[in-house]
């Protein structure tokens, strides 16, 4: 059991990258926004997408429009009915303009301070303690695994939905990481609990450890204001806290259950 504990603890504390927000988008305190097109062009709209990293121009008008200009190597012509999405360094300035035909797209970068991460860390610790207490009973462990896994899956889906211009499935795959293994194992834990198998606690501990590994890169969600998540930022922070804290609690609680119950043979 000591070898198992050592491997499990090392896996948990050293963690590993497997999950965060999809599409390479990261939490931050600043967000670039389009404020308008001056003067307006009939049918043409513009918006910052992908967490303010790309400018998207939709041409719903009847004539082509040219976007770019300035020091860009080449302008791009957007035909009627087309959408063009691109990165432009100019959109990182506090007040910015990008030429669009005879008009300009105007925008600004808003900076919002992030929350105090201490509160979210305390919530995470509280959830870890709660997860550990679930180790008193096999059924509670399985229920905890399902809840924590659901939180992790929700976070992955929400972050994939926040990306514009990519296919959902590859984005979700990228965001899920070890979830590809942890999610099915969560179902295994539930089935094992229903059948009263001693493996329940072992699977719960492994899934918990995996989800901590999965959640480590998401610590940034606690300290930045703007999160690439399709939903309220605080909901995402709660999901991250559940993944990290709940996962840690389940790993500890599951192992404690194994230690207390001992070998079955």
């Amino acid at each position, binding site marked *: *059991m*000591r*070898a*198992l504990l050592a*491997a*499990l603890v*090392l*896996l948990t504390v*050293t*963690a*590993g*990258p*497997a*999950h*965060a*927000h*999809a*599409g*390479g988008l990261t939490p931050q305190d600043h967000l670039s926004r389009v404020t308008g097109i001056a003067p307006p062009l009939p049918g043409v709209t513009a918006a910052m997408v992908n967490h303010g990293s790309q400018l998207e121009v939709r041409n719903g008008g009847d004539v082509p429009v040219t976007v770019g200009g300035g020091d860009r190597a080449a302008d791009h012509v957007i035909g009627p009915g087309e959408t063009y999405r691109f990165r432009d360094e100019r959109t990182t300035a506090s007040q910015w303009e990008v030429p669009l035909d005879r008009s300009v797209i105007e925008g600004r970068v808003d900076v919002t301070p992030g929350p105090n991460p201490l509160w979210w860390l305390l919530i995470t610790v509280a959830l870890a303690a709660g997860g550990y207490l679930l180790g008193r009973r096999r059924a509670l462990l399985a229920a905890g695994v399902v809840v924590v896994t659901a939180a992790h899956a929700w976070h992955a889906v929400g972050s994939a939905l926040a990306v514009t211009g990519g296919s959902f499935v*590859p984005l979700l*795959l*990228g*965001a*899920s*990481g*070890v*979830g*590809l*293994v*942890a999610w099915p*194992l969560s179902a295994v834990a539930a089935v094992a609990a229903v059948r009263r198998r*001693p493996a329940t606690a*072992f699977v719960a501990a*492994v899934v918990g450890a*995996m989800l901590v*590994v999965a959640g*480590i*890169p998401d610590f940034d969600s606690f300290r930045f204001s703007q999160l690439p998540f399709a939903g309220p930022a605080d909901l995402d922070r709660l999901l991250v806290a559940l993944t990290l804290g709940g996962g840690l609690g389940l790993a500890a609680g599951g192992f404690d259950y*194994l230690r207390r119950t001992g*070998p*079955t*043979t």
Partner: protein
Amino acid sequence: MTPGREAEVDEPAGSLTTSRRPRADYRTDLVTVLLGTWFSIGLFLDAWAHSNVPELESFFTPWHAVFYSGFAATGAWILWVLWRNHQQGLRGLDAVPVGYGPAVVALPLFAAAGVGDYLWHTFIGIEQGIDILFSPTHLVLITSMVLILTAPLRTLWSDRGVVSPSLKRFLPAGLALSFTTSLVLLFAGYADATVFTGEQVIRAFSFEKGANGIGRAAELAASVVVTNLIMIVPLLLAVRRFRLPFGAATLLAFVVMLLSTAVADYENISTAIGFIVSGVLIDVLVLKLRPSEDRVKEYRIFAGAASFATWAVFFATAIIDQGTTPSVTEMWTGAPVMAALHAVLMAVVLVPTARR
């Protein structure tokens, strides 16, 4: 007991060796290597993405997800094996099967290197060229991955009762050996001859004699040396320990080519077919020569003949594929001889004299 009969005898699950540590049974090793296959394919998909997907901006890609989920699955399985042994009353190191110790150490090492790789990609950037092969975090990842993947090989190697395994019995160890060879070759990608297309082979060894510009001739010549050593040394080690079953060399060639074609974006198919043909020829050599530590002469002949055949077929495949020979005859006729000499040298180093 004849060697052939020994091949059919598997150790029962959880059987004890002279210490209290159990030896993993066949099915355990097979599951380990199949999960290792998932793990390895993830790495090669990631390598393909690094080489072929422009503007790879994110650490969180589907390819990384396959790679890291493969690691998670393999790690969970190895922990399950430890837990199962614990349930049977084994404690501490006694719960770790023979040969699995390095894998247990490598699991957290890999996870730690994964964190390091995430931080490296975040703060220093994502490698898309030769730098990918020299990134310190990648080198720790690959080392720990090799330690994890080779567990089934160590299981079989440590079982002195197995001398002449059947192909089925050898499969977990053979796949472990093949993936390890593939990983080592992947990290020598700057000198990997398997990714050359037939057209590139012909062009590399076609140059004006005496001219300063020899183009890719030096690159291909160096690649033949490096690739030859990476592919022949595992075979030379394996035939020292086992009387390899027919198909073992073909399996190694097939796995290495399956993965090298992915890295080459499937443009080196004719070259890959040539290596698989060479694998069959090497299997015939193993069958006929029966090389081993005790048969040093045959061992050295095997080393030279296997490498010569591999590179003769390599150039023959390119010539057939392109319908022409390279213009510098010395290069394509000399390269297989050079490879054979290097292999014989390796054989001499590995088995300096017959066991008395």
